[in-house]
Every structure is written in C-alpha cells, then in structure tokens.
C-alpha cells in the first residue's frame, strides 16, 4: 500500500487478509497451541458461513480495533510508544499536507514571493478544463484495464504454479523479479523495447503486420503504459494469490476431487471463491497502484503523450506542479486525489475491520 510513494515501486506489505491471518495461524499452531484457534478460523480463506456466525462484534465494552485482553487504561506508556510515529507524521506528513491544502486556494509564483488568495478558483478552473476531464477518463480506463489484466494474469500464473511441482521455485523467483526493479527502470526498458523505430519487440509487432506506433497512435501509447504498469505489478498480485492458494484447506479440495471435480473446476468453484477477500483486497491495491504509483512509468514511457493520451491524474499533478510550476492548480489536484485516497482508506477499514473482528 505503498501509497506514500507512487514513484518507488514497491507496494508495501499490505494488510492482506491472506498473509496476516494465514501466517500467524501457522505459528500459532506450531508454537502456541491455543484453545479454540483452529486453522480454519484463522485462515484467509475462511468460508463465508463461518464469518456469518460471528456474534462477537458489538460487545458493549469493546472499542473497535482494541484487543479484548489489553493492558487497560494506562496512558503514559502508550503515549511514549506512539510518540516516535506521531512526531514523524506531524513533521513530515501533517504539516506538509496542511500546506498543500493551503496552497490549493492560492495563486502563487513558484518561489512564493507573490501570493494571492483566490478562493476556489483553482478548483473551478480544473472542473472547467477539458484537459482535466480527459485526464479523469484516461485514468479510469488505465486503472481498470491495468487492474483486470494484472489480476487475470496473476490468477492464471498462481493456478499454474500451484499445479506444477517441478521447477516451481524457479518459476516463482522469475515471476517475482519485476518486484525488484524500480518503476523508473522498468519504464525505460519498456520504452526502449517498444520504440517503433529501434525496439526489438516493436519490430516483431511490425513483422506480424501490426502497425505499432505509440508516438502517433494514442491507443498504442495507452496500451503500452498499461502493459508496462501491469508487468511491474503482476508479481505483487501473484504472490498473494499463490500464498492464498496454499492456504486453501487440502481437505476441501480433496473432497471435491472425490466428487469428481477436475482441477480447473475445483479452482473456480472452491479455491477462487475462497480467495474472494484476497481478490477484493488486490483489486483495491491495484487501483491505488494505478492511481498513484505509476508516475515513474508514465514519465519514462510516454511523458503523458501523445496529445495527453496517457496523461493520468497523478502524472498531471506532477507536470503541473513540477514542470509547469502551477503550484495552486497542482495542489488543488492533490487535494482531490487525497480525498479520493481517504475514501479508499475508509472503505478498506470498513471492509477489513468487519472481516478481522470476528476472529479476534
């Protein structure tokens, strides 16, 4: 969820239901046998019926997200424990964010020597701008397509690597490789390979009779950044799905096999539905990735062109802020994006707190 850096590649370890729950369950089972904690209850792929009968929420004395067994009302120690994080957040997050908020209602020169308060002019100008509307449409198309491709390929790869025995770790390592590559570098590689003049892969496309030219065809350009962004992100979805598949109870699959369901049927009828929460989570993460973290790829592959065809919102924030030096407009766009991100955060919380509470 490395929302804190669209540039840097790495999606941070997210709050995947798969990992957070599956992992401890293994440990719990092996080291700290605890009454009542069955593997199934702690599994990421807890079948829905189990979730449905979890009446623990809403106990009168419970605050959300607090352990039932806690250390009570002490205030000194938790304050000390929280202090480093809060200090860092205040200095490097809240103060800067507030300033961005202030900047969004100002018209100012980049050096800050000339500042005028303009109310909501920056926002009004944005909504009146055809360019901004085009950017919204492009962003939606880009993130949705990237999301679908990434998930679909990752599901197929996860299924395949779950099937095979020989060479599995080699495959897995190779598929994970793009994770190690900075988006900026990934973007440069893709730009180079699909360059219509010199790119070896572009030459292959030409040889196949496909008229490939991302410099002159907006669709080609959009597909190119979608492919590059997906390429960089498939490994992320893949690893969660692969891990999730490992956690599908073998007994269920065996039962289905006894009933005569083939591997593919089993996958779609049992494994995939059980991975539902993981898939939902990955979809959210893919949106976040597409919205915020693809900046470096766009920058390296197309510069948002041609004619704005790949100018997604976060890239526009960057261009307006850092190249056009239109700080007010850039800040206004940031504020809109921040609002969107906050909504995503809230949605995530609603979903996962709902999900997690039952098992606690």
């Amino acid at each position, binding site marked *: 969820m490395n929302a804190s850096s669209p540039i840097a590649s790495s999606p941070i370890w997210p709050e995947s239901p798969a990992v957070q729950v599956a992992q401890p369950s293994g440990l719990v089972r092996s080291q700290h046998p605890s009454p009542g904690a069955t593997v199934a209850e702690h599994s990421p792929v807890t079948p829905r019926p189990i979730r449905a009968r979890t009446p623990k929420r809403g106990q009168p004395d419970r605050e959300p997200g607090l352990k039932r067994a806690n250390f009570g009302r002490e205030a000194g120690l938790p304050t000390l424990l929280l*202090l*480093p994080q809060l*200090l860092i957040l205040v200095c490097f997050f809240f103060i800067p964010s507030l300033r961005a908020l202030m900047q969004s209602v100002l*018209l*100012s*020169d*980049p*050096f*800050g*020597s*000339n500042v*005028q308060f303009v109310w909501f002019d920056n926002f009004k100008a944005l909504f009146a701008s055809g360019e901004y509307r085009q950017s919204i449409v492009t962003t939606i198309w880009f993130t949705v397509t990237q999301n679908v491709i990434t998930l679909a390929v990752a599901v197929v790869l996860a299924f395949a690597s779950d099937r095979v025995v020989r060479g599995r770790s080699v495959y897995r390592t190779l598929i994970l490789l793009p994770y190690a590559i900075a988006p900026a570098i990934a973007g*440069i590689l*893709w*730009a*180079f*390979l*699909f*360059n*219509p*003049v*010199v*790119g070896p892969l572009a030459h292959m496309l030409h040889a196949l009779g496909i008229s490939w030219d*991302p*410099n*002159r*065809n*907006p669709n080609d350009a959009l597909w190119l950044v979608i492919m590059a962004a997906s390429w960089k992100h498939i490994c992320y979805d893949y690893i969660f799905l692969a891990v999730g598949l490992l956690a599908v109870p073998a007994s269920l699959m065996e039962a289905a096999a006894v009933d005569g369901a083939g591997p593919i049927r089993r996958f779609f009828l049992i494994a995939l539905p059980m991975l539902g929460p993981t898939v939902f989570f990955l979809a959210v993460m893919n949106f976040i990735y597409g919205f915020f973290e693809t900046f470096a790829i766009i920058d*390296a*592959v*197309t*510069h948002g*062109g*041609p*004619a*704005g*065809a790949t100018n997604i919102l976060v890239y526009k924030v960057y*261009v307006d802020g*850092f*190249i*056009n*030096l*239109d700080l007010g407009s850039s800040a206004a766009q940031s504020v809109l994006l921040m609002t969107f991100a906050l909504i995503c955060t809230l949605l995530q919380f609603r979903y996962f707190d709902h999900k997690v509470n039952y098992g606690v």
Partner: protein
Amino acid sequence: MKKTAFMAVLLGVLALAAPAQAARVEVQWWHAMSGVLGDRLNELVEKFNASQDKYTVVAVAKGNYDEVTNGVIAAYRAKRPPEMVQIAERGYLTMLLSGAIVPVQDLLDQKGYKIDWPDFIKPVASFWSYKGRMSAMPFNSSTPIFWYNKEHFRKAGFDKPADTWQELEAQLYAIKAKGVSECGTVLPGDFYWSLLENYSAINNQPYGTLANGFGGLGTEFVYNKTKVVSQVARLKKWLDDGVLQIAGQGLSPEQLFTSGRCSTFVNSTASHGNIERNAKIEWSATFLPHENDINPPLNSTIGGGAIWVMKGHTPERYDAVAAFLDFVAQPETQVWWHGVTGYVPATSKAYALARERGYYKEHPTREIAVLQLSRGTPNDNSRGFRFGNFVQTMLAQRSEVEAVFTGQKQPQQAMDDAVKRGNEILRQFEKLNAGKDAEAGREPK
C-alpha cells in the same frame, strides 16, 4: 527514537554554531548539463578552482532543466538555495520576477568587476538583459542549425540541402524515393523551439503581440494566424509520407541521425560535441531553411541557459560567485567553452579570438550558429520570446501539435486551441505579477 532525534537537533545546532574554518569559501552551482557537456562543465569548474585559492565552486548536476528548476524552487522556499543555478531560457520571466535573484550586472558592479557588457553579442545580450542590464550571466547559448548527411545528399544527386523549405521538401522526398535513406529527417525533441519559434523569427512571423512579449505582460499569442499553421501542416504531411520520423521515448532523435538512418536533423549547435564524438557518418551543417517568399530571412534566436545568482547568501559567498562569473565572462573561457561544446561564444571578443586562431577554418560548422544569430537586423518578430509561464504554454502547444500528428485535429483547429490555452496561461501570469509590469520589474535598491 525520540532521543536520537533530539540529539540530532542538538548536533545540528552545534554544527551551526561552530564557524566554518575552511580556508576556501565554497559555493554551489546547480546545473543541467549531462554527458559530454556535463564533463566539460566540470572541467570548467576545475579550471576555476585551480586558478585561485580563495574560492571553491561545487558543480552539482541536478538532472534536466525542469529538475534543476524544481530543485532550486524547493530549496529557495526552504531557504536553502544554491548560490548559482543554471536555468533554461524559457524560465527567464519566472526567474526575473521571482524576487529570488540578484541581477548579475548589479552584483558584479557592486563587487567591482569590470565586465565589458556591451561586448556580449546582440541576440544573447538582449535576451538575458532587462532594461539594458544583464539579469543572468549568459552561459550556454545555442541556436538550432540544420545538420545533414553529406553522403545521402550526394547519392541523391544534391550538393547540399536547399535554402528554402519548398526546395528542401523536394530533396527529402527524392532521397526517400531513391531509397538512399529510410527517412528524410527526424522530429527534434524540442521541435517547438526550432521548428515553430525559431521558424517564426527567421521567417519574420509574429508569435505574440507586444513584440513577442518584450513590450509587457499583456502579450497574447497570435501564431494561429501566421505561417506556423502551414508549418504544422507540412510536418504532418511529412510524417504521413514517412519523410519525417518521430524517435519517441527510449531513443534520442539524434541517434537516428548519427546512425545514418535519417538524412537530416534540425538541432541545437550544442550537439557538436556529441556528433563529433559519436557520428560515424559524413556529416555537415548549414543554416535553417526559410520560406521561399521570405527573403532575406531574419536571424534565429537563442536557447540554452544562463547562470542566475540567488538571493540570501553572505557577502563572502557573493565574492566567490562574482569571481566565478567574472571567470566565465572572460574571452579565454568563452572560446574554450565554445570550442569544446559547440555553444556560441557569448561575446564579440571571444568570437574574434576564435576567428583569429583559425578555429572556423578547421570547424566551419561551428560558425553557422553565430552567423545565423547575427544575420540581418533583428526586429520585433526575431528578437526573442518573452512570455510568462513559457514552459506551460509550450507544453500546451506541444500537446496540440501532437493532436495534429495523431490525426485528432486539423492544424488550424489545433493552433487555435493552443493559442487559446496559451493565452489563458499568460493571463494567469499577468494577474499574478500585476503591478510588476515587465517594464518596471526590478525594484529599486
């Protein structure tokens, strides 16, 4: 964690309290030169540092021009600007009206350096000066020239590229038709500079009102009513016919020329360093073409960058800055820089010195830029371009031109839209800087 942070604060304060005991005053210079040019710039700085023992200039490559600009803005707002920064020509008005700079002529006067300001060649001096005084030290001034592959032209039966766009078009189509090369020419990355702005200057077309902005911030773009429209249409036609190629990301346009794939290339004279070093082809260069109904063509205009001095430093540091800028302005330095990079010599003395030494006999193409810049009598259409938010208006324009290339818009429609978007941006700049009208800019000391 908290403790460490606190200690760090203390250390920071202590470090600040201890006076720097370094014998030499150190100043920073952020720049945007990379590759061969970056190497040369470092050599220049080393020369200066070795030439005296009081000052050290530290050259810091901060990426491309945009990144340097961003870096200096962020640093200035955080009250940590470098002493000197190299900014591209497009940022002139932004820097001038920023209130963040010290005009170089004021600084050098104040520090008692006698620079022969009138000696700077006209197109350079008029671009970088304001009310007759230099605001920034001209450093890397260039202008686009026309590079070509001699062998390709010979094979196609031509001596050299024609002077006019019309004849040139015939030549390029012939080269393509005869199969001499795959493409006649390649679209430069900064085509808006060479093929639209300089094109307007050379062909005596107005780009904006009020003498292209030299007359005040109220200027408006007018290039949708000039030959620029047909120029865009020409480029589109060449693209469709495969005579013009776009290099695209992952490939520098120059590569298509130096590898012998494309026969010609419009690019800055500053490519000399690279082309001499890398091109394995038989190349030469000449003047940019002009329209056949425009004769004589006017001068082209400069691009490149200048060194700005930032506000907010101690007098000792400004001593160092002044010494360095004086060094940069010396004819010897100018001639050397001109020779190793291909940028134009900024002063007449340097130009004369280079001539005197027979430099242009050995390197005839190095003189083209100077001659092209100083050709004819500059008028309002050819003196240069002084628009606020010029990067932003340029990007809007580029995007509209791309819409022509992709076939989404007709040239006239695209240029109308570009002018409309550009003028909105200009009005924003005017609104912001109201009262700092371009003719009254610098506040009295």
